[in-house]
């Protein structure tokens, strides 16, 4: 009886908050939880005539099919390594960029630099990949023309599996660093300016101030973003890999999401694609839990 009353009271006093919460909650239920019903297709031979529950159960057939493929290790490694490289190389760069922008004198110059680094984020992926093909073309691309000046023979960057991951990661850094730095700039703005003044009086130089005040000040932000990044490690964007893919770099560019797209959407092997996608999600879950535990122990910051 007592509890009921309190629920009523909460409803009455906090209804605005609850109403606001309801919107994302419903969104999650409809778009994230309801579709999970379809996961069972990973264990069934989907027949639209018979529906989800009526389709014959095939156990681990689709998983076996994936692991009987000669290239399954390759595909998982490609997915994993492209993400890993972009975290190792790409993660620190927005932080450095944010600190540089923070330290720069002059509002105008700061704004210009910020804008220039944001702009690539707004280029659509299709256009970006078209630009990459143009820039990196062995016949008339800017980069190869430039290398030619030094007598280096033209390199087919996109026509070889050797350079694919490099092109992928470097172009991602170019496109996203400016945008990702916004959150760090905001975090840096939240640090108490008295701390800097005090350090200055104590005789700390610029590097010392960055090391002892700026970085510790944004560590929680860094760790949170790192965990989130690790959580996405196996779910790198399908568009870019698919658009940059061709016969010559397929060994490095075939990742789980392009495989799922080709098998599931183009060829209609819905069960197989669901199974591979499910496996991918499980790997992801393991990784995010591991990263969270690791950060909890080392940095005392974590998602949960």
């Amino acid at each position: 009886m007592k509890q009921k009353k309190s629920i009523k009271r909460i409803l009455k006093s906090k209804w605005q908050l609850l109403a606001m919460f309801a919107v994302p909650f419903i969104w999650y239920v409809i778009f994230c939880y309801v579709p999970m019903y379809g996961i069972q297709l990973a264990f069934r031979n989907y027949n639209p005539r018979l529906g989800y529950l009526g389709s014959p159960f095939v156990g681990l057939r689709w998983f076996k099919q994936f692991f009987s493929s000669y290239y399954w290790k390759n595909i998982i490694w490609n997915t994993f390594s492209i993400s890993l490289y972009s975290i190792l190389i790409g993660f620190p760069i927005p932080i450095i960029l944010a600190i540089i922008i923070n330290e720069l004198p002059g509002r105008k110059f700061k704004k210009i630099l910020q804008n220039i680094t944001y702009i690539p984020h707004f280029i659509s992926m299709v256009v970006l990949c078209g630009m990459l093909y143009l820039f990196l073309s062995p016949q008339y691309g800017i980069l190869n023309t430039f290398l030619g000046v030094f007598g280096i023979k033209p390199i087919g960057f996109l026509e070889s599996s050797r350079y694919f991951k490099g092109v992928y990661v470097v172009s991602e850094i170019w496109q996203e660093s400016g945008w990702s730095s916004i959150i760090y700039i905001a975090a840096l703005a939240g640090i108490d300016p008295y701390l800097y003044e005090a350090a200055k009086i104590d005789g700390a130089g610029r590097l010392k101030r960055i090391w002892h005040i700026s970085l510790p000040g944004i560590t929680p932000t860094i760790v949170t973003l790192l965990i989130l990044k690790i959580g996405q490690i196996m779910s790198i964007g399908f568009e870019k890999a698919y658009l940059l893919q061709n016969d010559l770099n397929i060994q490095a560019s075939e990742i789980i999401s392009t495989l799922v797209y080709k098998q599931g959407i183009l060829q209609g092997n819905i069960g197989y694609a669901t199974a591979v996608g499910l496996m991918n999600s499980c790997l992801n879950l393991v990784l995010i839990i591991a990263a969270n535990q690791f950060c909890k122990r080392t940095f005392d910051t974590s998602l949960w």
Partner: protein
Amino acid sequence: MKQKKAMAVLLTACISAGMFGNLNVSADGDNLNKEGFPIVNEELTFRIFGQQGPVQSKWDTMNMWKKYQEMTNIKLDFTDVLAAEGYDEKKSLMWASNEYPDIFVRAFLNNTEIVKYGSMGILAPLEELIPEYAPNLQKLIDEDPAILSRITAPDGHIYALPAIFTLTAARDDKFWINTSWLEQVGKEIPTTVDELEDVLRAFKGVDFNENGEADEYPMGISDAQALIRRFAGVWGHQYQFGTWLEVKDDTVSTYLTDDSFKEELEWLASMYEEGLIDPEIFTQEYAKYAAKMAGQQMGLFFNQADDTFDSTNFQGISPFAGKADQQYVQASPAARDNGVFAICADCENIEAALRWIDYFYSYEGSILMRYGVEGENMYFDEDGKPHYNDGILDSPEGSGTEIGKFTIWPGGGAPQWVNDDNCEAIASEATLKAQEALDAYLPKQIYAEPLLEEETSDRLSVLWTDLENYMKETTSKMIRGELNFDSDWDTYVETMNKIGLEEWVSIYQETYDNLQN
């Protein structure tokens, strides 16, 4: 209250009357005429699923469909006729939806789909209905029983119908050589591989179009894999089951790891190194190749017909001798495109739908499909031969686009019968002459891509995806000189075997054995 009840009774009566009414029509078969036109007495509507080709106009504006709807008394609902862009995705989603159209026309159903959705009961089995309701198709099958093995699924049913090409010129790519270039460098038409080398070297570096740019290529082709296929024929290999296989003495085998295949690649690599092959074949889009054909930028290239370029200065030649006892040309079987038409099992008038499609397998129907409507798009000459109206074949937009304004065949995949009398648009005199140069090199028996049981087909697809990816990458690198034949060839053979080349061949052997029984 009473009124309400009365109303309910009335409604129920109406509904059941409607139901029985419908049943009567389809059960009696009264509505369907077994011969002649119209096909049905009372008007029907078919929902049609298909792909509007890139060079075609909207289907509801086509003369062909307007005329055929009048003739048959069957109206067509074109809502599900989709653009080519993103078509495969939409087709997959349609299959998964459990809501299907009545008929599939030019829907590019592939073999896997035909077997899969046929056995799920989504496509109607037609084999028992064909003799009665599709006499024209039956006639073509009687003349060439190989068609039957091409379209029959492993469970014995026929779920989809093919396009039939009794015209051989529509089934292979011709070898086109630029005779004006030959004249300019003072060479004869090459007949052996050695002579070809000589000619290509003579072509190299000459500015034939005098524009001051090096935009001429001694030899060009759409892509590297096609190049390897064409020259595999020169090295004496067939291309059966739509892939890298040959059939000799009832044995199916592949030559992908043969020494002769290595020799062929070595030859191509040396040609590539000398700059005799267009370097863009590894990455170019088809449109770019088409532009090179139209721009007369290549000395030797490969295309089915001369509809994409002006063939005044070109001649179709035979495959080059000298590397094997017998040369082969890769060609498709008479039932070239399978899956051009199918009927959904949910369709209430399957017999009418079969009669509806059968007309296009008759001579008159094939004229409607190929030439459009008499008077508006075409005319018959004094000998009764069909011709397009003036201005269509030499249209500045290209004949394909012009014809695509009134019929659905440009772009391929349409339910049609192409024979020697209705091929004006695709087989010019030059093309027919080029075909004569190839006739002696067609394999006696051409096997089509087989329809396989679902599990076999899944296994084959896993194997072939890996084999093909690896083979494409390795052969491309070999031709580009990025891999070394002495050391890397053995690795290639070893890896192909490891991926499962033998098992892959054995699946086709089994299929072949089943075909023989």
